[in-house]
């Protein structure tokens, strides 16, 4: 353990419950930007991403750390707070990194036709989340939503796999927005 190890939830049952409701709201309303704070995360991990990890990831969910997130402080934090096995992208239930570091979506588990839920959830760290850019429609969205997606074409390919495909949570600082595979991605 390193000296820089930051704490997890002070009151796990309550804080995880609050964090989950924010994540659930985000997933139920694709593109909607929700607050997710309260955690001092190990750099370069955002507070929102750390909250997601503490809420959903544990020893039963293999985690892939990509690029700069695959560093000693994050690995130590994961080992201490989550106990999640660290794996390559092909085996990941969750993955954390920037869009560029995570690589092509197709290398992550997409689920099968019989079990589309056996697919990865990617936590994509962003510079900023903005309700502008690509036009989103589909389940969870009343008329349309907008979100600054890193690569609409690649995400459109993922959506075309429905019901297979990966689900994405975009995080930045203390904010999160989700893009499940069910969302249709239009033009900017």
């Amino acid at each position: 353990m390193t000296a820089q190890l930051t704490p997890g939830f002070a009151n796990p049952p309550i804080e995880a419950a609050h964090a989950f409701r924010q994540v659930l709201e985000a997933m139920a309303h694709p593109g909607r930007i929700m607050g997710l704070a309260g955690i001092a995360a190990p750099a370069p991990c955002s507070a929102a991403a750390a909250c997601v990890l503490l809420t959903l990831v544990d020893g039963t969910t293999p985690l892939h750390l990509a690029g700069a997130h695959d560093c000693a402080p994050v690995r130590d934090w994961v080992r201490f707070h989550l106990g999640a096995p660290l794996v390559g992208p092909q085996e990941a239930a969750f993955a954390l990194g920037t869009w560029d570091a995570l690589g092509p979506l197709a290398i992550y588990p997409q689920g099968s036709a019989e079990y589309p839920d056996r697919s990865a959830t990617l936590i994509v760290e962003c510079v900023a989340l903005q309700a502008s850019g690509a036009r989103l429609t589909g389940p969870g969205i009343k008329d349309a939503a907008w979100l600054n997606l890193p690569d609409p074409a690649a995400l459109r390919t993922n959506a075309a796999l429905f019901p297979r495909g990966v689900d994405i949570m975009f995080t930045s600082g203390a904010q999160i927005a989700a893009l499940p595979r069910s969302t249709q991605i239009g033009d900017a």
Partner: protein
Amino acid sequence: MTAYNFAYLDEATKRMLRRAILKAVAIPGYQVPFSSREMPMPYGWGTGGVQLTAACLVPEDTLKVIDQGADDTTNAVSIRKFFARVAQVATTEATGAASIIQTRHRIPEAPLQEGQILVFQVPIPEPLRFLEPRETETRTMHALEDYGLMQVRLYEDIARHGEIARAYAYPVRVEGRYIMDPSPIPKFDNPKLDNCPALQLFGAGRECRIYALPPYTRVESLDFEDYPFTPSKAAGQCCALCGAMDSYLDEVITDDAGGRMFVCSDTDYCATRVAVQAEDAA
């Protein structure tokens, strides 16, 4: 001090449930398998719904629990008391005041709002089960979108009865993809599933399945061009207590002589209307 964790379940179980809920929301109408836990109530008392509610609750929630539309049945009261005790949440009977509503066999009459979560207790999650008892086969049918057998069976109903003979658990198609069992709600409630502003979660405890309808999801009751779906109810009847013409009615026996009347199945809807009428009359 309490001897149990917040909302009863341990954190590892809640993480497992929460992961399953998120996948269910991401794949509307698809049944996500999960590892159902023992709950301090028997199956049939909504252990699937109780586990979903436990996974979603925050201390600031206001919980409503209904059984066949009523807040005051043994089942509804015991579930409400359970969560008031293990999660210290406020409870209500008012649909509009609830942030989470757990229900068995009804959808409230009052329109649901964005931000609300409706949790359904589900006995049999598989809509194809009556056609095919084998789980491996129904799973393949869903995977291949092979719903021809369902169409044939419903058409046989029409040939035999002149209509699709299903008053409850009338199957729906979600976003043009998965066929889903809406739980044993009356088909009267089916239109409320469609384009609903609230998040709808379905939990089957014994069969270990979770599925979901995100807000504003397209939900169509199965029908045929020449036999369109009709959310029927007793024609011309109105509630004997509040006079509602637009609500789902239960027939209740009123005395030993076999007297009977029709009243709203949704007790909060009915009581609210009666209260407004009393106020207007005063």
